[in-house]
């Protein structure tokens, strides 16, 4: 046994022991999340368990739609009554840290994160080497396809290359039934950009290299071309891909009702698919991202979420918040050595990132749906977390959607997206 797991065990136990000390004064810690009601109920149950040993601390959970999360955080952080703990997307961290909205983790919590999470995940929760939060979920993308529709179209196996992917999309298309081969998302920035970035990574490219956008590279141009080809052939129908603020809407409806043959989507959609499909969820299979002509293998992009503590909270609130997070993400709060956070993430089909959680859920992660995502993790490319990342993402979203709706050609979109991205990242770094 190396010293690393021992250190993790020691830190975890020490923090867990410390967390059971009763608080001298009453503190209310608010926890802002975008999770759905059933998950919020699980979080509240975990908070109630924590409160039994910490009678002076009350964890108050607030939930908003995903589309409102960043706005709520930015408009309320540091204000009286603002959230003490917030679940955030790693792309937002650099700007939140720059604006001093998030509290640097105390030494014990920082060491806990550095020791008990994979290095790449801990780095995504850090800015300039300072840890700002507890990582929780990690998300990757894979090809989801409807086996029943594949069978009807005479397709034997999931496409491995772009050529096979395009051919499958065409075969799956049935205009008389209102059925499209491949579903593209619109009106949701991450939902538009992440599948595109995964196809780009599987074509040997990247959105940003060393802080410089690469959207007019040959690899990126080929990805825009693929989108254009799918749209022009009718194998993708742009109007079938609209998403709303809750990341549901026609895009989800069309896939769960069997009107879309394939999508590229993240693992956390498992719960939405199960809810929408019921027993028909068994028709859905997962496969690696198809590889482009310039690619060396399937690569998803990955991104993570973390819980951060507001820098504007009072010292007592911050102390209580970090203590709760150490317990909530620690190995004693869940079942069979898993953390309560791990239990909660697994209930949504989300991959936990804590090393001990991955071990605790090893059997659960072997389900046909999730196994495809777990196998994608090792070859995943992290989504670039740079200053101006949100604006960069929204700008790229606009150009991808312009190709989807025939407002720009693939070549125009690549050139315009690159010009915009250069200006956005330059301005953000000033």
């Amino acid at each position, binding site marked *: 046994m190396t010293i690393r797991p021992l250190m993790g065990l020691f830190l975890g136990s020490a923090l867990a022991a410390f967390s059971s000390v009763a608080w001298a004064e009453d503190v209310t810690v608010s926890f802002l999340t975008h999770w759905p009601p059933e998950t919020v109920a699980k979080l509240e149950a975990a908070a109630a368990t924590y409160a039994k040993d910490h009678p002076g601390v009350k964890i108050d959970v607030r939930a908003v*739609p995903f*589309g*409102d999360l*960043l*706005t709520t955080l*930015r*408009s309320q*952080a*540091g204000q009286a009554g603002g959230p003490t703990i917030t679940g955030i997307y790693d792309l937002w961290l650099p*700007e*939140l840290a*720059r*604006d*001093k*909205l998030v509290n640097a983790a105390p030494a014990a919590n920082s060491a806990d994160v550095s020791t008990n999470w994979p290095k790449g995940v801990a780095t995504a929760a850090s800015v300039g080497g300072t840890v700002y939060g507890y990582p929780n979920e990690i998300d990757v993308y894979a090809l989801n396809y409807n086996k029943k529709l594949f069978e009807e179209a005479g397709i034997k196996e999931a496409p491995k290359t772009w050529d096979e992917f395009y051919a499958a999309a065409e075969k799956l298309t049935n205009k008389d039934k*209102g059925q499209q081969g491949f579903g593209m998302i*619109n*009106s*949701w920035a991450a939902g538009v950009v992440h599948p595109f970035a995964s196809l780009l990574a599987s074509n040997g490219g990247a959105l940003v290299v060393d802080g410089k956008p690469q959207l007019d590279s040959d690899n990126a141009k080929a990805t825009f071309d693929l989108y254009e080809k799918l749209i022009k052939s009718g194998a993708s129908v*742009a*109007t*079938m*891909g*609209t*998403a*709303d*603020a809750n990341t549901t*809407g*026609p895009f989800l*409806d*069309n896939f769960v*009702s069997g*009107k879309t043959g394939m999508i590229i989507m993240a693992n956390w959609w498992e719960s939405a698919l199960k809810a929408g499909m019921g027993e028909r969820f068994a028709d859905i299979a997962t496969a690696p991202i198809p590889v482009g002509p310039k690619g060396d293998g399937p690569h998803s992009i990955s991104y993570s979420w973390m819980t951060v503590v507001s820098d504007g909270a009072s010292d007592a609130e911050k102390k209580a918040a970090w203590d709760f997070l150490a317990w909530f993400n620690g190995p004693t709060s869940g079942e069979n050595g898993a953390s309560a956070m791990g239990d909660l993430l697994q209930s949504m089909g989300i991959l936990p990132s804590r090393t001990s959680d991955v071990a605790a859920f090893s059997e659960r992660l072997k389900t046909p749906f999730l196994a495809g995502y777990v196998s994608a993790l090792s070859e995943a490319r992290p989504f670039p977390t740079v200053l101006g990342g*949100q*604006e960069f993402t*929204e*700008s790229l979203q*606009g150009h991808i*959607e*312009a190709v*989807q*709706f025939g*407002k720009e050609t693939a070549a125009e979109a690549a050139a315009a997206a690159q010009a*915009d991205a250069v*200006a*956005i990242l330059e301005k953000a770094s000033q």
Partner: protein
Amino acid sequence: MTGFRKSIVVMLAPSLGLIAVFILVPITLTIWLAFTKWSSQTPFATATFIGLDNFREIFGPGSVGRDFKGALANTALYSLMSIALILPLSVLFGMLIHQAELKGANLLRTILFATYMVPMIAVALVFSKLYSPSEGPINQILGWVGIGPLPWLSSPDTALVSVVLLNVWQQVGYFTILIIAGLTQIPQSIYEAARMDGARGPALFGFITLPLLKRTLLFSAVIALINAVQVFEPVALVTQGGPVGSTNVMTYHIRRVGIERAQGGLGSAMSVTLLLALVVTVTAVFALARREERR
């Protein structure tokens, strides 16, 4: 200062003080911030004066300028379409309900006004399902008469119109009540005199009702314009400004820039521009109306 003047100052001070604190100070602050580079997450003291740079950027050729001009155009189009539909419909419904002999006029009035009382969040969520291209009831009904399916919120060509229709559905009841109030102010004796001179339906409407409703219509148009410019909820809840920015209206865009991206200076410049555009438009509408009256 005389005692009378002092008492005026003392009596006006509370209300003027409140106006200053809650209206003038925020507006002045926004105007000042429009000329600065400022992250909306940092104290005002961190704002750096940069002159007209924010205005150059929002009217420039870059992505910021393109998105801003797109949002401004979408807002103008949304406002024009809303007013163009709301005013004629409210006059039509107002005339219908105002007819004393119409059975169920009170019920119709209640139903129309009820739409205005439903929270926009509920309206937006229900309409997002009604508009669903594949499973929405609207397309199913249109399908019975051989129309469609229409993409509604899912296409950049129809999304803004779909949001306008949602707005019209919700607001028309309120404006109908305003029109009825205007109609009740028109003396019946004028209609009787006109009828004695041989005027009938369309002539009565064109030469008496419409001219005498002018002030009500002007007021309604201004209120409808202000309401339309402030549209936010249906966009935030249902379309997120998409597809391809086709429903990205000013309030939603300012929130995205000023709050989500924390670019407070740019967001303030956009807000000031929107305020100026609104003031100029409303002033122009009143000036036109005054010129018409003088004729």
